């Protein structure tokens, strides 16, 4: 009880987010969308403010909050939209926001690859499949989610557990983990630990990929080949050979 009374505001913010997602869930009777959006935005803002109050001033980065808010809101809109085409487009938006977060974490190659693979290829494939499979517009199964209340309650509980673990973990834990790693006699994957001025450059990442993970890269290529063959074999075709 003591813990709950100490974290009233965080719990309230999580409940606001849950209520917003619940409100936005597709249902036959149209509720005004902006109420749910407002609830989710207020909850996310309150949560960010609470978590941010404990953070140092150095973490105050406007870009981070912009990208994080865009990613979270796009994801909420993706899972609640009743039209799968809009869901795919919101997914592309969320992917772009996540790529912004990657960029801020010194991962430019990863951001570019994610944009190309996800927003470029996967979303286009999704839209094509929607075009092939669902041509009749709104359907009943897009308007009735299954067990939304149970799913949202348990997922928000999971989120609360994750966030409270994050909040109670301290920098001391992280430093301890680092020292423990440094104390290991044989440094594992030495090519993946570049000097500080090379962190995040293409050179360092290429060395890591084609040095430490060379066999994994080859395996990944084989996996792609096998998946391509499998997808072609699974995809249904008509008598004449066309899809």
């Amino acid at each position, binding site marked *: 009880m003591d813990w709950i009374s100490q974290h009233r505001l965080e719990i309230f913010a999580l409940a606001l987010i849950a209520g917003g997602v619940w409100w936005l869930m597709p249902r036959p009777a149209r509720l005004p969308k902006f109420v749910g959006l407002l609830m989710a935005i207020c909850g996310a803002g309150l949560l960010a403010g609470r*978590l941010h109050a404990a*953070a140092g001033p*150095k*973490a105050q980065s406007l870009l981070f909050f912009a990208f994080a808010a865009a*990613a*979270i809101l796009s*994801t909420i809109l*993706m*899972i609640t939209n009743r039209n*799968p085409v809009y869901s*795919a487009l919101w*997914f592309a938006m969320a992917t772009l926001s*996540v790529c912004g*977060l*990657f960029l801020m*974490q*010194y991962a430019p190659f*990863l951001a570019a*690859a994610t944009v190309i*693979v*996800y927003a470029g290829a996967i979303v286009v494939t*999704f839209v094509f*499949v929607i075009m092939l*499979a*669902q041509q009749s517009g709104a*359907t*009943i*199964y*897009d308007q*009735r*989610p*299954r*067990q*939304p209340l149970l*799913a*949202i309650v348990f*997922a*928000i509980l999971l*989120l609360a557990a*994750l966030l409270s673990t994050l*909040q109670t973990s301290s920098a001391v834990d*992280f430093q301890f983990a*680092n020292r423990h790693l440094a104390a290991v006699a044989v440094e594992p994957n030495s090519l*993946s630990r570049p000097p*500080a001025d090379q962190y*995040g450059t293409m050179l360092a*990442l290429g060395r*890591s*990929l084609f040095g430490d*993970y060379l066999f994994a890269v080859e395996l*990944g290529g084989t*996996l*792609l080949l*096998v*998946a391509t063959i499998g*997808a072609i074999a699974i*995809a*249904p075709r008509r008598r*004449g*050979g066309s899809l």
Partner: protein
Amino acid sequence: MMGDLESYLAVGAVLFVLGAIGFFTRRNLIVMVLSAEMMLHGVSLTLVTFGRLHASLEGQAFTIFILTVAACEAGLALALVLALYQRSKSLDVEFWTELREPDLPPPMLVDDAGQMPMVTPPARFPRLTPAGRVPENLDTGDRELVDDAASQTADVPTEPPQPKEVIKSVSH
């Protein structure tokens, strides 16, 4: 305390949980696959953050492999979705609740299953084109059937269909 890294981890956790909500609640197969990809995004963000925490590039390398696997997964999942669509003519996942072990209880279906008609594939019975004269002595039931058949095939051209070109199969 929350620092810079922890806020990234929090965003990753939020993305993962939202993807999980979408995966559990939505019934459209395509949106379910999209939600699974969203969960992968959350995990990728977490991995990159942990890599930065340890000043190693292992997190980024791992995320590149996640990207590879996600591409494979998307291709295979979409091929499966198309194959399932060919069978049920619908993207509703509830058509496939029968795919479970026989001794398991039935899954929890939609809340309002009582008030909405349970989704069933539309019955498509073959209809014959009415041909010849309508017999004189029909009772009312048969007359309705004939009229119904005539109205169903009203837009069908009356001339006999031309034989289609035989497409030569290219199979060996």
